[in-house]
């Protein structure tokens, strides 16, 4: 957590008070929550009443996809189609799949090109074909694996033109690229605390004032009756400080981290000439460098680099911890081998040129070794 966010958390956590209570302590907590709501709204181009606090990105995505679907279908039983992209985070993908399996939803998966980018024309086609059926469209702002930034404003405009609520998961984008809820034209947007230096376990769904959303959680009617549950005053206060800090430092940080990332990419390519940079080469998150290393297995590379103090990630792991070929890379047209050979390096506000030096000192040897280790797989 950022120091400023931690300080705000500790100060608020010392205070007793349920923001739903009417007595003095409750009013103090309430005031802190509302001030935090206003600060977040101001930082992300939303109105305060559009900030619905949640437990984080997963809940916000579930609330948006399911809640908007249910609300639209309640208005018209024909509206039972969920449109989303093939490269979404699992919180969106699995919510859509769940609606398909349990609520009779039809699903349309928008394809991506080899850079991981959704073509707005494909959304236009779906909206034309199923004009009366689509309940909700959800496309991420930026991809969490390969870093590709999506043409969100264009997608949102198309959906709005067809009168369909558009949700975007902006968890990866906030603080990395300029994010403005009103300007984006989205009806709903997911953000979360821990990706911007705030606490884990607090996030928000930005939900347009006119947008109807059926709740997942029922109870005390907090948060516009869309999300019941006593608010975590300290978490919300820290979240607000983190969002404000991340947004105000975004431009400078993106410049610095982006330059460092470009340096990393150039040096990795020089050291391992056949390494493939995945994702959009230009329109990508500044801290993201994602490669395939042909002939290597990502989990072997990770083990070798980890042993030298370099932290990186393979795609995603299943619940048993087995590295799965990434659905994002597969959707981009990579085969299983290329998907398994990939590794992501993420740079942040604490990253330095020294970190890049360290990586490059370890990488060539690790790649060579990992290539030899792939031989164990070939049949004898």
């Amino acid at each position: 957590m950022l120091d400023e966010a931690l300080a705000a958390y500790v100060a608020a956590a010392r205070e007793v008070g349920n923001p739903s209570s009417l007595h003095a302590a409750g009013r103090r907590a309430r005031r802190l929550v509302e001030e935090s709501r206003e600060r977040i709204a101001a930082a992300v181009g939303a109105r305060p009443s559009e900030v619905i606090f949640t437990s984080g990105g997963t809940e916000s995505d579930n609330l948006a996809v399911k809640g908007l679907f249910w609300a639209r279908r309640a208005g018209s039983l024909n509206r039972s189609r969920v449109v989303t992209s093939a490269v979404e985070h699992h919180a969106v993908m699995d919510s859509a799949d769940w609606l398909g399996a349990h609520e009779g939803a039809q699903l349309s998966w928008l394809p991506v090109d080899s850079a991981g980018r959704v073509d707005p024309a494909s959304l236009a086609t779906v909206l034309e074909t199923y004009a009366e059926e689509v309940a909700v469209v959800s496309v991420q702002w930026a991809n969490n694996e390969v870093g590709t930034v999506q043409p969100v404003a264009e997608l949102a405009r198309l959906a709005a033109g067809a009168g369909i609520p558009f949700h975007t998961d902006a968890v990866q984008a906030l603080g990395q690229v300029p994010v403005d809820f009103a300007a984006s034209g989205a009806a709903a947007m997911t953000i979360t605390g821990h990706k911007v230096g705030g606490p884990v376990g607090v996030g928000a769904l930005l939900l347009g004032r006119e947008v109807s959303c059926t709740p997942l959680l029922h109870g005390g009617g907090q948060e516009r009756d869309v999300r019941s549950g006593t608010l975590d005053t300290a978490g919300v206060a820290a979240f607000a400080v983190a969002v404000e800090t991340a947004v105000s430092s975004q431009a400078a940080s993106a410049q610095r981290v982006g330059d460092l990332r470009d340096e990393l990419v150039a040096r990795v390519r020089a050291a391992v000439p056949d390494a493939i940079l995945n994702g959009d080469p230009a329109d990508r998150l500044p801290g993201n460098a994602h490669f395939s290393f042909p002939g290597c297995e990502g989990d072997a590379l990770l083990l070798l680099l980890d042993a030298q103090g370099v932290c990186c990630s393979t795609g995603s792991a299943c619940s048993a911890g087995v590295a799965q070929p990434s659905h994002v890379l597969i959707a981009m047209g990579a085969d299983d081998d290329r998907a398994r050979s990939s590794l992501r390096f993420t740079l942040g506000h604490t990253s330095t040129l020294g970190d890049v030096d360290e990586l490059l000192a370890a990488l060539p040897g690790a790649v060579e070794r990992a290539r030899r280790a792939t031989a164990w797989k070939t049949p004898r």
Partner: protein
Amino acid sequence: MRVLAAMSGGVDSAVAAARAHDAGHDVTGVHLALARNPQTFRTGARGCCTLEDSRDARRAADVIGIPFYVWDMAEQFHADVVDDFVAEYAAGRTPNPCLRCNEKIKFEAVLDRAVALGFDAVVTGHHARLGADGRLRRSVDHGKDQSYVLAVLTREQLDRAVFPLGDSTKAQVREEAARRGLAVADKPDSHDICFIADGDTQGFLQRQLGDAPGDIVDGRTGERLGGHNGAYGYTIGQRKGLDLRVPAADGRPRYVLSITPVTNTVTVGPKEDLEVDTVTASRVIWHGTPTPVECDVQLRAHGEVVPAVVTVEGETLTARLATPARGVAAGQAIVAYQRSADGDIVLGSATMTAGVASEALVAARA
């Protein structure tokens, strides 16, 4: 040394990894994911391939303080162990999948990958001794000894294996696990076959191989006594479940004597016809002791040993047993041991192809 500890999620491999760490080795823990779909293998604490086991192994690595990864070995495991298991039964033999897993997965696929990644050896929680002389010996805990399922390892494989538990009993291992704060200290032992979720081997084989009706015949008269739905459902020495309509002339129980896949026939007969005193075996691993040699042989996992004279000629091992043995099943391993005060020494191992009765033994029956 840089060593890779194979961590199943059980108490043995956790303590083995901890001891290797204490001994000053640079230890990395690896859990082998063996199921194509982890939920389909045993659930709960009985097997070695469930999500729970993966978590238990990870927690043990945390407590020991070593890095931990999961390696996906599902494809190799399926091809080399599960498919082989089914094919062996289909061929009328009785495979030992744990032995096969040691041979092909832990000390081949995993070991090769580990060596390629810069590790010097693989550490496992097997109960067996591998001393400074490099010879494989039985564990001090005879009840838990696993040298039988490790005897298939070659010299090169043994040279890169570390078994830190061979000098301890299982009770000591559990006690040590509790002392170290490892939550798996009282986890039940794994048993049965990890890839058969419900423990019903016959049902598993039936699903894999389908119905294949054939005859059950009398070994002495050739008379048809009944039918079966698949010869793979029978094991040499089996007495129960034969469901024979025709009682034996002498009223004594009958046992499965042999399985002949070509004719899909199960042959049965009286107990004494099960007895053999000569065993032949192929796929020999032999560690250099000149033969013929007088030694002990073990013919099945957890079986008693029989004194024998073992001869190795080329690719064939022959054992002449001092006392006849029953229930010798092709496909199982024969392991030769030399008696020793500090743990009987494995001389070698081979896969049994046939057990036969000498003329003298046949004459004695009549």
